[in-house]
């Protein structure tokens, strides 16, 4: 790898720090022969479903509409009551005890978000703590921490949902579900109503959060791409709530269990592998960099033989400011405002597929890759992606990369 | 009926018609003032013809005038959004003032009579109708008006050919509420000397005559139901694509 080392934030350290103190330990969720038949129906919506979601993993339930995935998920918090079978959270059957009490211990995020329009953001997030009778001061403290966790300014606490954008509302929905630090979270198409660009951003954010929190998550979606991106494990369901395949994303893409799964996953399985790798883990290229005011001579000589045939202007914090044109280089000194802006910038944490999409949409050949602080980590080009797909490295690095996003 | 001040018989100073208690061999039902005396009702049903017609005139005039005015206001408010709030407030005041008080606020201006009653009842209906028309117009999907503009209709044509027809269910719903309420309220017109079925409840010599109250009240209720059904039917004819809801 000749590119500069991508600024890799060490996620393991971060998760170690925060989860040690006050995050609860995750708990496995186990379905045993669970069936659901709705009144008046002549088929089971879910038929003898058995599934084990290991503690701390994201398990995606995916399938065509009517496959019973939402029903299967909702039986965990008994917003749908199962007809037969058992679901265990840890060793405890969800059927024991009061449904309302059970639900307070399970985080719940739905597609339409369902923030209460008459309550402030802080009150929304504090809903379950207040149901559980926490003291006001404790609730306030918790709300503040959660707002920070989802990256919203504390002043948002006093606003009302109607004053927030869709993406912000969805973040609050996640914070509300995390309020009492439940070991298990249910997410029902949580990003389904968000536009594609924000959707990808929210997905990345949630994966980042999950890396810290390590919840056991049941995640329902109809979108295979989202399943591959989000899931540690994916359960592909077919009509009647039967599991067609329960596997890691890599296994699902490499070895679909049958025609149904192959069909559902789609003909572009190879391309979907791009979802298994983060941009920062790809072999990024290196561009000559310079600061404003540098003499142009050395920059021109750097360009000879560089992977990227354009020089990138950065600031003192290595944040990209723009590409230098021939005209810029003709001057004796590097100008502070180059002809070509640095856009688009690609988030190092995003998956390769999204990075490629950004690149293609912008119509540019190269795009700087930056970390969470905006620091340059390398340059992404279409050739990098093509090499990745054709080199056979795809298959190998997939296997290596698959679990990495969620560690 | 000894002391005129003892009972509300003095109400309008009207003398009892001499044939009011026509003696029938009805087992003394009338004398005992039982809840309902069918024989008397059958014998005297024709005395309700005029009050019923007067009542119809009151209701029809008030709702028709109310509709015309409210419609004009609503179209204006639709064109100039800023007018919506003041119109709503003004019609709200008229709606809030009890009709019976309204009758007599008009006393120095229009005196007593059916006109006074009609003005007060009209004032009452304005807000109900105005509110429904504006809601109906506002609920027309923007893509529909956009499409109408796209095919070259003028704003006036859009209003009459697209927006008003689509708002018809709400307009009819407003008319139903206004009409039914006005039928009930118009019984009070008697206090303004406006006639109507109320005259058969409080005029005459005795407000405690139960059979009379029941007959007059029942006619009013029947009239309300009939108007309601007729409007419902009209709504279905004018907006066949949608069931008119209450």
């Amino acid at each position: 790898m000749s590119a500069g080392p991508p600024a890799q934030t060490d996620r393991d350290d971060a998760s170690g720090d925060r989860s040690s103190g006050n995050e609860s330990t995750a708990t496995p969720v186990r379905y045993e022969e669970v069936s659901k038949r709705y009144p008046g129906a002549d088929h089971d919506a879910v038929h003898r479903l058995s599934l084990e979601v290991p503690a701390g993993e994201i398990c995606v339930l995916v399938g065509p509409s009517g496959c019973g995935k939402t029903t299967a998920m909702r039986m965990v918090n008994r917003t749908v009551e199962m007809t037969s079978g058992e679901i265990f959270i840890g060793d405890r059957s969800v059927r024991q005890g009061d449904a309302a009490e059970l639900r307070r211990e399970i985080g719940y995020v739905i597609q339409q978000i369902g923030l209460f329009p008459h309550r402030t953001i802080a009150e929304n997030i504090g809903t379950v703590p207040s149901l559980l009778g926490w003291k006001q001061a404790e609730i306030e403290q918790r709300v503040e921490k959660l707002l920070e966790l989802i990256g919203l300014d504390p002043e948002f606490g006093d606003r009302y949902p109607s004053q927030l954008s869709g993406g912000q509302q969805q973040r609050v929905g996640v914070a509300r579900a995390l309020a009492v630090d439940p070991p298990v979270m249910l997410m029902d198409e949580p990003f389904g109503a968000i536009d594609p660009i924000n959707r990808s951003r929210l997905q990345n954010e949630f994966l980042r959060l999950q890396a810290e929190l390590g919840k056991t998550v049941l995640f329902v979606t109809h979108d295979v791409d989202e399943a591959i991106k989000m899931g540690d494990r994916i359960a592909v369901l077919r009509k009647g709530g039967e599991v067609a395949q329960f596997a890691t994303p890599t296994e699902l893409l490499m070895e679909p269990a049958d025609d149904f799964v192959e069909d559902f996953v789609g003909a572009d399985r190879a391309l979907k592998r791009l979802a298994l790798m983060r941009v920062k883990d790809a072999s990024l290229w290196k561009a000559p960099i310079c600061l404003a005011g540098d003499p142009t001579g050395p920059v021109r000589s750097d360009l000879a033989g560089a992977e990227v045939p354009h020089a990138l202007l950065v600031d003192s914090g290595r944040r990209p400011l723009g590409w230098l044109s021939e005209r810029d280089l003709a001057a004796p000194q590097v100008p502070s405002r180059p002809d070509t802006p640095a856009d688009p910038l690609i988030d190092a944490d995003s998956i390769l597929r999204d990075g490629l999409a950004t690149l293609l949409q912008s119509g540019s050949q190269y795009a700087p890759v930056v970390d969470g602080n905006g620091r340059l980590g390398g340059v992404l080009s279409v050739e990098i992606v093509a090499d990745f797909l054709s080199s056979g490295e795809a298959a190998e690095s997939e296997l290596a990369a698959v679990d990495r996003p969620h560690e | 009926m000894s002391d005129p001040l003892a009972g509300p018989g003095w109400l309008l100073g009207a003398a009892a018609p001499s044939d009011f208690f026509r003696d029938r061999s009805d087992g003394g039902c009338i004398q005992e003032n039982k809840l309902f005396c069918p024989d008397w009702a059958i014998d005297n049903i024709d005395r309700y013809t005029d009050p019923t017609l007067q009542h119809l005139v009151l209701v029809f005039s008030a709702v028709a005038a109310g509709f015309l005015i409210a419609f004009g206001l609503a179209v204006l408010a639709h064109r100039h959004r800023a007018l919506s709030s003041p119109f709503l407030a003004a019609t709200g005041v008229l709606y809030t003032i009890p009709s019976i008080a309204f009758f007599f606020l008009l006393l120095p201006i229009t005196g007593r009579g059916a006109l006074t009653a009609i003005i007060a009842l009209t004032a009452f209906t304005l807000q109900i109708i105005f509110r429904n028309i504006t809601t109906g117009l506002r609920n027309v999907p923007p893509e529909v008006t956009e499409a109408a503009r796209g095919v070259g209709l003028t704003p006036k044509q859009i209003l009459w050919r697209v927006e008003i027809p689509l708002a018809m269910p709400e307009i009819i719903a407003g008319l139903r509420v206004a009409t039914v309420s006005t039928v009930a309220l118009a019984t009070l017109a008697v206090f303004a000397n406006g006639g109507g079925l109320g005259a058969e409840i409080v005029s005459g010599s005795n407000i405690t005559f139960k059979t009379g109250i029941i007959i007059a009240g029942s006619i009013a209720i029947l009239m309300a139901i009939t108007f309601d059904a007729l409007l419902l039917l009209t709504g279905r004819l004018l907006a066949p694509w949608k069931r008119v809801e209450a």
Partner: protein
Amino acid sequence: MIPTPVAALGLFGEAFQFVFQGQEAATGGVTVGGTGQVLDLAGKQLEVTLLALAVSIVLALPVGVFLGHHGKGEFVAVSAGNAGRAIPELALIALMAAAVGVGLFNLVVALAILGIPPILTNAFVGIRQVDRVSVEAARGMGMTDGEIIRKVELPLAVPTIMGGVRTSAINIIATATIAPLAGILTLGDFIISRNVYGDAGVLAGAILVALMALALELTLAGVQWKLTSPGLRIRRAE
């Protein structure tokens, strides 16, 4: 006797004088009107109105909320509102007085019959119209039925429910004006007993009743504003 500026106002001037000074009864002898009697009758009208409104709320609100929460009885709840409008106020008061008897209790019952339907219908509709997503989220987070009603449905239904209460209050205070027919003397006595109070008394009564109804409506609008979450007002503004 009448000061000139007041006389210039004609009947309005006389009505003004009737309220503040009183005048001799048209039937002779006693003085009628004046602040004493006005306050007496106004107090009675307010008392009767608030009593009947309270009874209507206590009886109709829980039923409407219960039916709305469970999504049952839509026909009953909506028909009640339609039927309530068709009841001729005058016939109701007269029949109640004639068939059941005069007195405060019977009057309040009659007024509550007029007050209940709008509250019942609007409570039902208001609760029913609450966004199902909010309710689903509340249930999914572990709220009991009671908590869902108290913390989610009622606060969100405030504008609709208060709309019903306001309609109801207007019906009741208007009908309380003819309460003298049922033996309870309210401000309506000035209007109905023209032979005693004269045209000045009638006009004074009409003005007082109108002002009182407007004051009640404004008060209830204020109550509604106070009870409505700012979060809903912001949404409306947009």
